[in-house]
């Protein structure tokens, strides 16, 4: 039985403060693409976390047009897109990027 695990992590922990809320994005290479997780901290202990799988950069482009961060946080939005590019162009399985994967 094949053990399911991410082949290598390409963390892109990005935190944004303001109005008591913050969000983080995590990108992780998995065998079928790049798993993207977004965590939004809400009031109290409440948080919203969702994960989706991107198979190619075209899907990233489609989602970018719907992403409210595009205008609300343009600099960090651009950074996320750069990280997606890095993730899809990173082919070496041992290409491990170090860094904290927070929010887990």
């Amino acid at each position, binding site marked *: *039985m094949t053990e399911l695990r991410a082949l290598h992590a390409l963390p892109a922990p990005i935190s944004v403060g303001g109005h008591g809320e913050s969000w983080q994005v995590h990108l992780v290479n998995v065998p*079928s693409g790049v798993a993207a997780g977004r965590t939004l901290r809400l009031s109290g202990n409440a948080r919203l976390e*969702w994960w989706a799988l991107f198979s190619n950069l075209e899907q990233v482009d*489609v989602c970018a047009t719907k992403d409210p961060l595009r205008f609300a946080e343009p600099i960090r939005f651009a950074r996320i897109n750069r990280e997606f590019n890095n993730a899809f162009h990173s082919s070496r399985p041992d290409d491990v990027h170090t860094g904290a994967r927070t929010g*887990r």
Partner: protein
Amino acid sequence: MHSTHLGQTTSIQELARGADYPARVLAAIVEISLAKDPPALLEGLMRATESIGASASVFTAAIPEDGSRPSCFSVFACHPAFAHEQSNRDALLDNPWWHFAQTHRKPGTNHEMQLQHAADAASMEVARQYGFRSCLVVPTMSGTEPARQEMLCLGSECEDDFEGSEARVVRALARSLASELHDWLTGHLRRQLLGTTQLRESDIRLLAMERRGLGTKEIAGLTGLSLASINSRFQRINTYMNCTNRKDSARRAAAYGLLEPL
């Protein structure tokens, strides 16, 4: 129509007629428990969805917190644009699928969803565009209180793919998949809370006693600790749990599966 990850080439009903279908699907479902983290879970859900023959799936959980608003955890095994469409809590917890899951114990198809408002119909129409032309919603609920509510929704590009006698097998397998996802999430939440709160086993025992409704004196009688020590321990636990009182801490611990035996 948006292309999905899981290019569905044939109907689920047709696939389900194959003699080895249940075994193949179960082989994918049992791998869910091996997922080390959410990305691996996503990958596992993707494989299980594909093995069922579905074109898309979503797993969503609402975890009660100390306040009125729950935390949400979702995994989208479908086109990521659908995840973006659904990515705020209102969209996740205010749609016909979730309403169905909240009010039913047994799985149901899109024909059983009640569309009460125009927004409900719009929500279903968006879902249709992302591989949920027909769908099967499987509700799950934790046995502990406060109850964590969860829902698995499987989608198909084929109309009425979850109806008819062949669907009995698919429903049984979908329930099995939902149960595996539930178990995985319980372990994940438990690890997550233990990782962030640094609670010790003795703290968890205290929280379990509080959850059972025991007062300080009763806890002292059972543990041999002094009343002052128990109050002090609970103050520290409340800080770790980010809760204002021991009752809320115990509720949160229960919701995160911390008080369930391993």
